[in-house]
């Protein structure tokens, strides 16, 4: 079950403290066609709120923030061949990184799907 942030990112447990992270379908729609993605180095440490990645769309460059603190376990190599995966499948094949969480309780701050949907509707 995915968790969502106010910056329109999602997290999904892979196994234990290993979580997959991406941007939501709403976010990709707002960005427009993605032309390239700058992903972090594997093994670096991030704190919640740090700049983690940059998504360049036809319109502008957008920062993606680390939703939780942890270390980058892997990045989606497919995105360098096909950045448009983020548009086509933001919440599945267009995942950005996998993070090894430092502190599972940080997940409690995040929204579930229903609250995220409400959050988006309220801010339209």
């Amino acid at each position, binding site marked *: 079950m995915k968790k969502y942030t106010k910056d329109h990112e999602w997290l999904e447990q892979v196994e234990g403290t290993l979580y997959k992270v991406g941007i939501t379908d709403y976010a990709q729609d707002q960005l*427009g*066609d993605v*032309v*390239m993605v*700058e992903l972090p180095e594997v093994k670096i440490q991030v704190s919640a709120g740090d700049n983690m990645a*940059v998504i*360049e769309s*036809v*319109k*502008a*460059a957008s920062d993606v923030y680390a939703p939780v603190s942890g270390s980058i376990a892997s990045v989606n190599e497919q995105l360098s061949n096909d950045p448009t995966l983020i*548009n086509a499948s933001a919440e599945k094949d267009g995942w950005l990184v996998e993070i090894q969480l430092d502190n599972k309780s940080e997940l409690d701050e995040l929204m579930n799907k229903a609250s995220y949907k409400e959050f988006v509707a309220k801010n339209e």
Partner: protein
Amino acid sequence: MKKTPLHSLHQELGGKMVTFADYALPVQYKSGLIGEHLHTRKAASLFDVSHMGQISISGDADQALAYVILTDFSQLKVGWGKYSVITNEQGGIVDDCIVARDQAQVIFIVLNASRKEVDIAVLQKAIPSSCQLTQYSNLALIALQGPQAEQALAHFFPQVTGMPFMTAIWSAYQNHQFRISRTGYTGEDGFEVSMPAEVAIDFCKSLLSLEGGELVKPAGLGARDSLRLEAGLALYGQDLTEQISPIEAGLLWTIPKNFRETGNFCGAQNISQQIAEKPNKKLVGLKPEGRVPVRQGAPLISSENEVLGEVTSGGFSPSLQAPIAMGYVKKGFAGLGKQVIANVRGKEIVCEIVKLPFVKHNYKK
């Protein structure tokens, strides 16, 4: 915020509306920017450009107009148009526009939306009181651009087949007067069509429904911008401003040779000086290394950290699958093949100065 005559059609087609020059216009539709861009280069796209200014000046205005719009009107024949610039006394560009002679004593001009009020004031002041300036706020304007634009438009106006580039005609369709010019802002063959506001939606729907909707597709401002950038065409407000001269902007070719000799036009002093001594900066094409787009406002520096200029337009080229940009670079550093460094969010991206256009033009010359 103003609406164009096609506003409800944009909503029906799922257009993502933004504000541009005070008008509500679609930045893209459902296909997305890249899809719309690529469709234009291989088939035909329909753009709503009704926000632009459409005016005519009637009477004996040639001489007066030639002072502010750098075109030799005495050489402009009926049915023909020309790309030109309106200048100020300092030799800066007030606007770029297409002027055309619709009748012996009627000049039709299409102006940029963000500048139309300024332009109209300049032109009104320049023409003698015996002449009349009319603004057509009841005319919609669309651009139909792409290699199949002629085929599409010929369904309604067979005479556009073989119509020469830069000519314009008025023609009746279903009892309404349409103005068609073989002009555009994408580098492709295409047309710009004016029609009464009340028939615009129906006419556009007819174009969009040709060949089951596969021939002509709607395209928004986003694709319009990426197409013109690939074509190396300047955008007023970014690449052209009142502080930039036509010489700096690479538009010397728009100034008739005899004008350059007599120097009898608005801003001639500075412009003639720049022609003689070469301008202090010039507009160049830039090809950034890698995939990161280099956008408007990015400073351009040398490897010794000297400021050389700045990027005025930039983005990602769907046709080339790479970033492209245009900007101003200081004299002495602006030669083809030279390198400049763009500062993008703290990162240094090397750019090569390249010839414009990035994608070759396909005008029906």
